[in-house]
C-alpha cells in the first residue's frame, strides 16, 4: 500500500484497536509495529501438533507450552519482548542532574504490544477519575495540591458518560470476566464513597452503578485471592473478584460477535453510523478458547489457536488481518513522522525494516493521516525526533510533560509459616485475583499536619501471587549472594509468600517528563528517551497513609496467630520502578497552550495526526489503564469515521 489513508504506529490497545475500526469502516490502513510477531511460529507449530513419535499430541492442540519458560520471559537479557535489542532509556530524579541509562520503562516490542503481555487487570475508570480537579476544588484541597506541591490536575475534557458506551464495547472485545453488581456494591460501600456521594458534582460525575454485566463470569478464586478476600472482608474492605481480561475458565469459549450483539441490543449503541451495523458486519464468527489457568500470563505470551488472554492480538488485530484494505508490518521501527511545514500536515512515516536488525532497511509509508500509539515513553520520543527542532506539535513545550507511571512497588508482602508450604498454589491463573476499592481515596488519620482529616488519592488494592520461583531464586543469588541452605530457605519462603499491591495514582507534575536524552543513543544512533521523575507531596503522604490500611488485610491472620507482624513487610513505591503503566506525556485538553491533543486525541498543532495510546491521559487513575485506552480508541475511531461520513476533511 503506497499511499494509505491512515498509518498507525504501534499495535497495542490504542493502535491495535483504532486501526481495526478504521479498516472495518473502509479506510486503507497500514500498521507499523516495531516488534516481531512472536505468535506466528507458535501457531504454525500448533498446525502440526505431532509429538516426537509422530503421534497426534492432543494436549498441544489448543495451547502451546513453548512460551512456558521463565528464564526466557523473566530473566534473559536483552529481553526481546520488552524492548528491541540495543534499546534502553535513561533516568534521573531531577532536571538538575544528569540522567543515566537504566533497564526499566520498557515498551513491549511484540505484535500487540503491551496488550499481549499485560496482567489482564481489566478495570474501567470510576466517574470521579474524569473530574479530579472539580473534586479537589470542592474539597478545598486543590491549592495544597497545585500551589504548594506543584501538581497540575485537570479534569478530562471527556466525561464518564461519553466514555460509557465505549467501555461496554471495550469490555466485550476484551471478554472481561467479573461480577458487575459486586463491583458496584464494593465501590458504593467504600468509606470514601459514603463521604463524597452526597456532593452534587460527585453524583453528576457519571453512573456509579453501571448495569452492563461483564461478558464473562468471575475468574475462579485462588488461594492467594482467598487470603486477600477473607482478610479484606474481615477488615470491612468489601473485596470482589478482580475484573480480568480473560475468557473465563470452565466456559465453552467466547463468541465475540454474539456478545457484541447482546451488548449493542440490550445496553445501547455508541453514537455513530458504525455502531448501527449488525454484529455480523462488525465481527467474525471466531470463537476464542477459555483460559486453562496455566499461569503463564502476566509478562508471558499466551498463545493458542484462539488466545484466551485478551489483547489486541487476540481480538482486533486478528480481525484486521482478515481485511483486504489493511496491512500489518512487523519489525518496522518508526523514527520520524514526515511533516510538511508549509501545510502543517504530517505526510507519512519513515521507518527501519529491522527484520534483519544487523541490516536495517530504511523505508517510507505515506499516508493522509498519522496515528501515534507507541506508549507514553516512546510516543513523545518519536514526536520530539520529528518535525522542527523543538519537535512535532511541541510549539508550547508540552510534549513529554505530566508523565505518570503509577506507584509500582507500593504494597505489603506476607510470608506464611512453613505449614503452608505447597498450599498457596501461586501457579493458578493470572497474577491478580481479588481486589478492593476501599483505598481509592485514603483519609489522613495519622499525621498532625494540614493534610489531616482529608481524603487523598490512592488506588485499588489487589492480591498478587508469587509466580516465578526461578526469578526469585536468581534474585536472591545475585542480590544477596545466597547459596546452599540459605538460598533454599529463601526459595521455600517464596512459595508461601504473597503480596497485596496498591495500583495507585501518581498525580501529574510538569517536571515529570519524557524528552530526548542529549547524550545517549540507541543501536541506530537515535537519541533514547530520558525520563525525569520524582515523587510529589501526594505520593509521599500516600506512603505514610496506606501502610496501616494494607496491614489491616492481615489483621485477621495476626489475630488467629497465623502471621506475626514481622512476617508482613511494607514496601514504598520505587521511583525508578517504571513498568508498563506509562501515561501522560501528550496530555489531552481543550487549551492548546497546556495540552498536546484535543478531546478527540487530535494534535492541536498538526491536525492530521492523532495520539491514542495512554500518552493522552490527563490523570492516571488508580487502576490498570488498558480498558480505558481501548474504549478511547473506539471513541476516537468512531469520531473519525463520522467526520469522514459527513465529508469533513479532518485536517
Amino acid at each position: 500500500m503506497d499511499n494509505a489513508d491512515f498509518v498507525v504506529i504501534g499495535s497495542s490497545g490504542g493502535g491495535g484497536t483504532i486501526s481495526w475500526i478504521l479498516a472495518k469502516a473502509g479506510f486503507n490502513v497500514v500498521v507499523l509495529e516495531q516488534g516481531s510477531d512472536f505468535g506466528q511460529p507458535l501457531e504454525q507449530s500448533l498446525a502440526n501438533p505431532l509429538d516426537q513419535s509422530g503421534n497426534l499430541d492432543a494436549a498441544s492442540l489448543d495451547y502451546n507450552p513453548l512460551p512456558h519458560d521463565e528464564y526466557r520471559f523473566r530473566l534473559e537479557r536483552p529481553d526481546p519482548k520488552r524492548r528491541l535489542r540495543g534499546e534502553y532509556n535513561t533516568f534521573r530524579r531531577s532536571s538538575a542532574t544528569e540522567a543515566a541509562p537504566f533497564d526499566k520503562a520498557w515498551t513491549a516490542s511484540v505484535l500487540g504490544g503491551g496488550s499481549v503481555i499485560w496482567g489482564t487487570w481489566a478495570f474501567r475508570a470510576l466517574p470521579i477519575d474524569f473530574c479530579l480537579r472539580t473534586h479537589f476544588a470542592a474539597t478545598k484541597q486543590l491549592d495544597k495540591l497545585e500551589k504548594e506541591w506543584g501538581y497540575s490536575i485537570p479534569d478530562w475534557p471527556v466525561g464518564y458518560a461519553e466514555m460509557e458506551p465505549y467501555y461496554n464495547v471495550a469490555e466485550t472485545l476484551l471478554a472481561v470476566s467479573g461480577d458487575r453488581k459486586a463491583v458496584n456494591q464494593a465501590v458504593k460501600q467504600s468509606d470514601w464513597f459514603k463521604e463524597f456521594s452526597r456532593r452534587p458534582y460527585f453524583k453528576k460525575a457519571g453512573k456509579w452503578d453501571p448495569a452492563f454485566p461483564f461478558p464473562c463470569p468471575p475468574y475462579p478464586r485462588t488461594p492467594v485471592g482467598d487470603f486477600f478476600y477473607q482478610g479484606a472482608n474481615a477488615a470491612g474492605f468489601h473485596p470482589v473478584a478482580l475484573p480480568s481480561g480473560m475468557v473465563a475458565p470452565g466456559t465453552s469459549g467466547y463468541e465475540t460477535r454474539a456478545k457484541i450483539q447482546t451488548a449493542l441490543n440490550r445496553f445501547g449503541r455508541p453514537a455513530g453510523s458504525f455502531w448501527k451495523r449488525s454484529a455480523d458486519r462488525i465481527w467474525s464468527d471466531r470463537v476464542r478458547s477459555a483460559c486453562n489457568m496455566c499461569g503463564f500470563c502476566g509478562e508471558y505470551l499466551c498463545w493458542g489457536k484462539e488466545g484466551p488472554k485478551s489483547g489486541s492480538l487476540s481480538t482486533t488485530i486478528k480481525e484486521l488481518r482478515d481485511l483486504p484494505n489493511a496491512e500489518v508490518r512487523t519489525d518496522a521501527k518508526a523514527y520520524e513522522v514526515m511533516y510538511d511545514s508549509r501545510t502543517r500536515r504530517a505526510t507519512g512515516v519513515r521507518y527501519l525494516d529491522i527484520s534483519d536488525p544487523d541490516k536495517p532497511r530504511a523505508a517510507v509509508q505515506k499516508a493522509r493521516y498519522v496515528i501515534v500509539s507507541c506508549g507514553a515513553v516512546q510516543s513523545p520520543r518519536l514526536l520530539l525526533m520529528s518535525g522542527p527542532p523543538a519537535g512535532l506539535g511541541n510549539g508550547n513545550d508540552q510534549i513529554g510533560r505530566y508523565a505518570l507511571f503509577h506507584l509500582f512497588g507500593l504494597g505489603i508482602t506476607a510470608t506464611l509459616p512453613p505449614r503452608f508450604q505447597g498450599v498457596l498454589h501461586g501457579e493458578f491463573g493470572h497474577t491478580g485475583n481479588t481486589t478492593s476499592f476501599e483505598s481509592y481515596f485514603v483519609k489522613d488519620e495519622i499525621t498532625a499536619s494540614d493534610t489531616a482529616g482529608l481524603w487523598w488519592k490512592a488506588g485499588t488494592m489487589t492480591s498478587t501471587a508469587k509466580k516465578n520461583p526461578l526469578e526469585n531464586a536468581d534474585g536472591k543469588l545475585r542480590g544477596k549472594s545466597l547459596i546452599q541452605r540459605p538460598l533454599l530457605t529463601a526459595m521455600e519462603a517464596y512459595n508461601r509468600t504473597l503480596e497485596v499491591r496498591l495500583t495507585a495514582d501518581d498525580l501529574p507534575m510538569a517536571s515529570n517528563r519524557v524528552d530526548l536524552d542529549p547524550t545517549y543513543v540507541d543501536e541506530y544512533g537515535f537519541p533514547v528517551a530520558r525520563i525525569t521523575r520524582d515523587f510529589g507531596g501526594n505520593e509521599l503522604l500516600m506512603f505514610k497513609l496506606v501502610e496501616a490500611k494494607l496491614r489491616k488485610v492481615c489483621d485477621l491472620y495476626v489475630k488467629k496467630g497465623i502471621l506475626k507482624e514481622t512476617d508482613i513487610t511494607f514496601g514504598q513505591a520505587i521511583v525508578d520502578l517504571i513498568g508498563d503503566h506509562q501515561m501522560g506525556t501528550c496530555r489531552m485538553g481543550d487549551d492548546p497552550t497546556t495540552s498536546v491533543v484535543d478531546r478527540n486525541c487530535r494534535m492541536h498543532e498538526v491536525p492530521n495526526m492523532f495520539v491514542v495510546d495512554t500518552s493522552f491521559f490527563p490523570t492516571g487513575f488508580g487502576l490498570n489503564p488498558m480498558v480505558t485506552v481501548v474504549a478511547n480508541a473506539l471513541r476516537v475511531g468512531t469520531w473519525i469515521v463520522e467526520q469522514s461520513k459527513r465529508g469533513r476533511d479532518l485536517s
Partner: protein
Amino acid sequence: MTPELRDILENLAAGLFGLDAWVKEPTKYTPPELPLPWRETGHTFAPKDLAVIPFFENLLRASSSDDELGDRWSALSADPLKFSPLADPRAWRRSRGLADAPQFGVVKSSNVWLVNAEGHPVSRATFYTACWPLLKTAVDAKKTHGPVDWEALARELLTNANGQWPSTQQPSSAAFVTQFASDMLYALLGMRTAAPEPWRYAVLIELGEYRRAGNRYTPQDTAAAVTRFEKVLGL
C-alpha cells in the same frame, strides 16, 4: 567440555545447593506427590539427577552468537552513530541541541547479561572459557589435601577467598560462581533438562511449587485448593 571438567562442575553444582542434606532434614516439608525417588534410601540427591550439565552445555552452544552482538556493541561504543540511517546524523543532532559526543549506553543500562573486564558484552561460552583453567587449578589444589569439600569450595569462590583464584583476576571467582549457580538454577527450576519425569521437576516438587510447562487447570481444581487452604488457615 572434557569429562574431567564435567565431573568438576557436577560436584560444584552439588556443593552450591546441598540438595541431599536438604531433602533429608527431618522437619522439611514432605510433598504429597509420589513417588519421590530422589528420597529413596541409598540415593544421594544431587543436581546431576536432573541432567544439569548436558543442559548447561546446550546453553553454552545456544548463546554462542552473543559474541557477534558483543562485537557490534563494541563498534557502537567507539562510533555511536555508525548505523544511523540519517544522511548527516551529527548535523541532525546539532539542530536539536543534542550533545556532539553521543554515547551508546546499552551496557550501562544492564540490558546485557554478561560482560568481560572491559565492559564488553560476551557470550556464556567466552565468559566461562576464561574461568575453566582457574577452576581446575583451585580444585587440583584442594585434591592435594584429600577429598574436596565442594560446599566449602563453593563458599570460598563466592567470597573471592580461594587462594588459587587471584582476587585481581577477571572474571573474579565470585562472578564465575554466581553465573554458574544462576545457570544451574535455570536447569533445576526451568523444567527443560533431559531428565525424565518426575526427576526433571524434583526441586520444584520439594519446594511445593506446582508450576509446570503445559499446566492446565479447571475451576474445580482451584476450588479444591481454596478448600484445602482455608482448612490450613483454620477458617
